[in-house]
């Protein structure tokens, strides 16, 4: 694995870079062997930037987020690589300093608003706890900050909500509370791990709009983790597509969604149901995610890839830059040696599109 060397250095505006994940590897030693959940992931987020981390269930996106926060339980888990944040490597930071970073500088929103709030503590006391941990304030001030935070995320009647218990709020309200809690300490980076997955569609939009508007107003950088390309299109500027623990394609939203350069991305896009495909069988990517104990030798997507040939079985490609360093794809088709095959990929319609 020589990924880290192959990752094109992103040097433009170095001072701007807030989070620089380099060759992050997280594995879990379990009874049946070792699962490499995150295997050589590198990406950067600029101050105020928005990155979407996309992939299907089990591809390692949540583990990436938890690794950045260093919330991986260490006896079964093991981490390597670097997570540079504000000039420090979070993976080697001592645990007291890490407590300061968590919640204070990097905040996180979780997938399940219904269960992410403690049922026995009031909403107010939970927000105030976060405030007390990271700011020097007295009770009255903390309560005011909490009330303001709730008001900022559009919770009606915040004064009353402070003294309510989570079970008295709806899912959307709870997710707003989670966001209020995350933002109450004005973090530099907000990690949102599938923040809208558990919500229904109308609420999803509201929550995304909210995250986006707060992000724009406060200048907090955003790492949005999702499996929903629609959410990505609406919310972030840059995208990294993950598959089987590694990044397979990066670029701006337009680049990746309009001109996918990795067959996996193309498959993902093709499997979005839409009005135009009415009457056709829903397209899917054939096969399943590889068994973590028996990863393919070569490209991890090769067993499911309609374009695969011997090269893909033999070895795994690095992230290959496409014109500029931030636009990459981990596919042999992008290697200049296989120009002919690439032309076929670019010209032909997606073979993922199922026909009647």
């Amino acid at each position, binding site marked *: 694995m020589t990924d880290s060397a192959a990752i094109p250095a992103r040097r433009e505006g170095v001072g701007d870079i807030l989070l620089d994940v380099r060759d992050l590897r997280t594995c879990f030693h379990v009874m049946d062997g070792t699962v490499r959940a995150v295997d050589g992931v590198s990406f950067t987020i600029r101050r105020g930037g928005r990155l979407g981390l996309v992939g299907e269930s089990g591809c390692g996106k949540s583990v990436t987020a938890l690794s950045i*926060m260093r*919330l991986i339980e260490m*006896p079964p888990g093991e981490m390597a690589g670097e997570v540079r944040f504000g000039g420090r490597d979070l993976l080697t930071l001592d645990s007291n300093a890490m*407590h*300061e*970073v*968590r*919640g*204070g500088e990097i*905040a*996180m929103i*979780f*997938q*399940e608003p219904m*269960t*992410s*709030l*403690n*049922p*026995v*503590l009031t909403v107010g006391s939970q927000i105030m*706890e*976060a405030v007390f*941990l*990271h700011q020097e304030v007295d009770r009255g001030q903390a309560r005011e900050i909490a009330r303001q935070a709730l008001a900022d995320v559009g919770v009606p009647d915040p004064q009353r909500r402070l003294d*309510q*218990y989570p079970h*008295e709020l709806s899912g959307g309200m709870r997710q707003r509370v*989670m966001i209020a*809690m*995350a933002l109450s300490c004005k973090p530099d980076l907000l990690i949102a791990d599938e923040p809208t997955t558990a919500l229904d569609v109308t609420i999803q939009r509201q929550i995304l709009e909210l995250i986006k508007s707060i992000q724009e107003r406060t200048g907090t950088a955003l790492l949005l983790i999702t499996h929903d390309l629609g959410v990505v299109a609406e919310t972030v500027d840059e995208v990294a597509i993950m598959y089987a623990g590694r990044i397979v394609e990066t670029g701006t939203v337009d680049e990746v969604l309009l001109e996918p350069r990795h067959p996996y991305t193309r498959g993902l896009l093709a499997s979005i149901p839409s009005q135009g495909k009415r009457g056709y069988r829903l397209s899917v990517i054939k096969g399943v995610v590889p068994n973590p104990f028996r990863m393919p030798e070569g490209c991890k997507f090769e067993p499911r890839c309609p374009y695969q040939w011997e090269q893909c079985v033999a070895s795994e490609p690095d992230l290959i830059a496409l014109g500029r360093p931030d636009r990459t794809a981990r596919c042999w088709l992008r290697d200049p040696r296989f120009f002919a095959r690439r032309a076929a990929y670019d010209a032909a319609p997606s073979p993922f599109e199922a026909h009647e």
Partner: protein
Amino acid sequence: MADTVKAHQLATPAEIEELNPEIVGADYDVQLESLSQWQLAWRRFKRHRMAVIGSTLFLTMVAIAIFGPILVPYDFYKAPPPDEIVYAGRPPSIARPFGETGGLQRDVFALVINGVRWSMLIGVLATVISSVIGTIVGGVAGYFGGFLDTVLMRIVDALLALPLLFVILVFTKFLGAGNWFTVMIIFALFGWLGIARLVRSVMLSLREEDYVDAARAAGVSSARIIFRHLLPNSLSPIIVAATLGVAGVIIGEAFVSFLGFGVDIQTPTLGNTLNGALTFISVGNWWWAFFPGMAIVIIVLGINFMGDGLRDALDPRARI
């Protein structure tokens, strides 16, 4: 004509008030009364008839334990003059409702009240201490897991493997020297094992909850997560176990004292009172043993019913 039109119009609030002031007096802004978990639990508890009876019994005994000495205005330690002594004691009468003991002619009513007082004190104190120890050990073991968990739980296993009764007998005999405080401490030091296991098992499942991850992501320390976030969530089984633990200690103390290994005979616990009654049952003095025995039965029964009720009332899955 104007009148008929008016009749078909909707009445204005002022008109309604004129017609029926009470309706308007009611708050129209109907807000669903939001109940905290404790209010919900109280509602469920009230529906549990045995629990209400049990807790009434228990609270009565607690009241007796606290206010008992006021009910007995005379000094029961003082022996009566020799000419009043009847060897077998006197059976219950109007003046002495529970009768008098044989031998020293003490008032059984006063003995029972003081017995309840001492037994309750020992039972409650020992249980409070053992619950605290058990909660800390179980909480730490369950939350951190791994090596710490293994070590702590093997200690618990080892202690549980001891025949507790004999250990307590030996300890009370050689360390206690009859001092009620020492006896209480010994019960406390051996009573936390069950609670530790219980709390550990609850913590093992609670630590996987999403809100624990959320709290950790907010930078909350482990100790704070255990005691502020997880402990309140595991409080209901702890309360139930502790309640039943009081009954256990009271019976245990009575048993140990009855065997003569417990609290000093000068301290009138229920067990000691029963012990004294032993030699006099054969001469027909049943009331000396009966009333303290009944006191134990009522306390324990009350606690058990109350514990059952609490278990149901505090079950968060229960619907009203």
